[in-house]
């Protein structure tokens, strides 16, 4: 197989393996699904350039995650400059799906509240929550991805959930099934 074909094959394999993780990290930073997708695409474009230039990546997963984190920061700063006064997470909306209007309204209200609370958490806690709930990773998988001890993940996950529960309780809100 020619060199270009091998690069392409490897790149597509890495993309399918890590696209969701990259998206999750970018999403956790600013809680905006579209921005996260932009960051994901840009991250993998840079990976392609690396591979095409013949750079060796000992740990491509760590590489793409690090690039995604950096890009998420840069993206937010540039978006902040463009928008003038507000960071992009304030413009984010909950994706629409085909549910009845009344249910949708109630769900949107719940989601808006969840989102509001998530925004108040440290970014590191949001990362763990995003991996836990969006990608359904368990604590060992999160620990491996973020380079943390499993106990640390348990602790931070528990703390983040407790914070959210406290905030919801302070607002006199409980979640309904």
């Amino acid at each position, binding site marked *: 197989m020619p060199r270009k074909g091998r690069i392409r094959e490897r790149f597509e394999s890495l993309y399918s393996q890590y*696209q969701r993780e990259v998206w999750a990290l970018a999403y956790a930073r600013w809680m905006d699904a579209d921005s996260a997708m932009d960051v994901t695409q840009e991250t993998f474009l840079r990976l392609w350039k690396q591979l095409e230039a013949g750079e060796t990546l000992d740990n491509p997963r760590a590489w793409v995650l690090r690039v995604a984190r950096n890009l998420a920061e840069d993206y937010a700063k540039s978006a902040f400059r463009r928008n003038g006064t507000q960071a992009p997470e304030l413009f984010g909306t909950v*994706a629409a799906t085909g549910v009845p209007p009344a249910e949708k309204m109630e769900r949107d209200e*719940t989601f808006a509240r969840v989102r509001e609370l998530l925004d108040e958490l440290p970014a590191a806690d949001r990362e763990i929550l995003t991996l836990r709930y969006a990608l359904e990773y368990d604590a060992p998988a999160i620990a491996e991805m973020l380079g943390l001890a499993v106990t640390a993940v348990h602790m931070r996950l528990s703390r983040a*959930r407790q914070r959210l529960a406290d905030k919801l309780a302070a607002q006199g809100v409980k*979640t309904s099934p």
Partner: protein
Amino acid sequence: MTRSSPQPNPDDLDRAFSQYFRTQLPGRFPAAPIPTDTAPPPAPHGGPWRTRLTLAASVAAVLALGLAVSYGPGANRRITPDGGGFDPNAVVGDGKGLQKHLPDAPPMGMVP
């Protein structure tokens, strides 16, 4: 979500988070972002000399076609003086056919 309980049920909390994040996660990701190849196509077999030869042959063919159009059988076609378009009768190889449309030529030596 309703306002009443002092502490949310942990299962409800989990469910709310799961639902929330599931709506955010894209169902399908776009194809891998591979830039389109901007490199020039590989040279045809035979190398640059063959390319030049092909170009020269093409130029020669265009020139030959141009000459053929200029001096070929259709080269003597004329537009009729009345502007009515091509007169097929006016197309004569020795030019005699033009005489019936042209005024009589003045005698030699006379200035019109």
